[in-house]
């Protein structure tokens, strides 16, 4: 079974801090994704990566950056945390994208609170 591991289940940070959320997958998947989930808004894509050192913006990239130095690891960075970034953050990975895209496998999520 695919295992997607997020480094923290719960995290509390202060406004203005630089925050790192880490995600690791163990199935050699090409693609990795970061979403945030807020009540009534579903899953919104922040960034995705289809290869090492490659990244693409999703719907809501403002205030975030990402890093993919190794295939198995995809990091989400909040450059200067703000209270409106309090949310549930979900990482996912998939084998392929495009017309024959494979299912996405999710981590357990990180509930981030910015005070």
């Amino acid at each position, binding site marked *: 079974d695919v295992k997607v591991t997020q480094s923290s289940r719960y995290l509390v940070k202060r406004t203005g801090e630089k925050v790192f959320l880490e995600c690791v997958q163990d199935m050699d998947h090409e693609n990795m994704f970061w979403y945030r989930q807020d009540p009534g808004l*579903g899953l919104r894509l922040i960034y995705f990566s289809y290869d090492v050192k490659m990244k693409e913006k999703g*719907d809501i990239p403002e205030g975030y950056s990402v890093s993919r130095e190794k295939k198995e690891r995809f990091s989400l960075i909040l450059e200067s945390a703000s209270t409106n970034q309090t949310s549930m953050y979900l990482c996912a990975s998939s084998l392929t994208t495009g017309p024959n895209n494979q299912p996405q496998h*999710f981590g357990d999520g990180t509930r981030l609170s910015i005070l």
Partner: protein
Amino acid sequence: GQQVMQIPQYQHVQEGEDFTTYCNSSTTLSNIQWYKQRPGGHPVFLIQLVKSGEVKKQKRLTFQFGEAKKNSSLHITATQTTDVGTYFCKGGNQFYFGTGTSLTVIP
């Protein structure tokens, strides 16, 4: 980004009643995937439909893909409390999920 719209956003049903959620896209989809997220959990892949008009069943769950490949539905027969959660669809080669339908089952 492209969005797949889901309706309804919320649904409360009495245990034993049926439930349906609909997924609609303005563009033709190469395939559609359905996911379930239990309360406090993460989305888990249920099924993928690829062919026009395709119907697939998983026990009490029936999934349909429209003839034009622009819409899909998930129907649950005789809901149980274990069906509680949010159901998401995701269209084709998009990275974007539908808005989700949150199902509450009243015992």
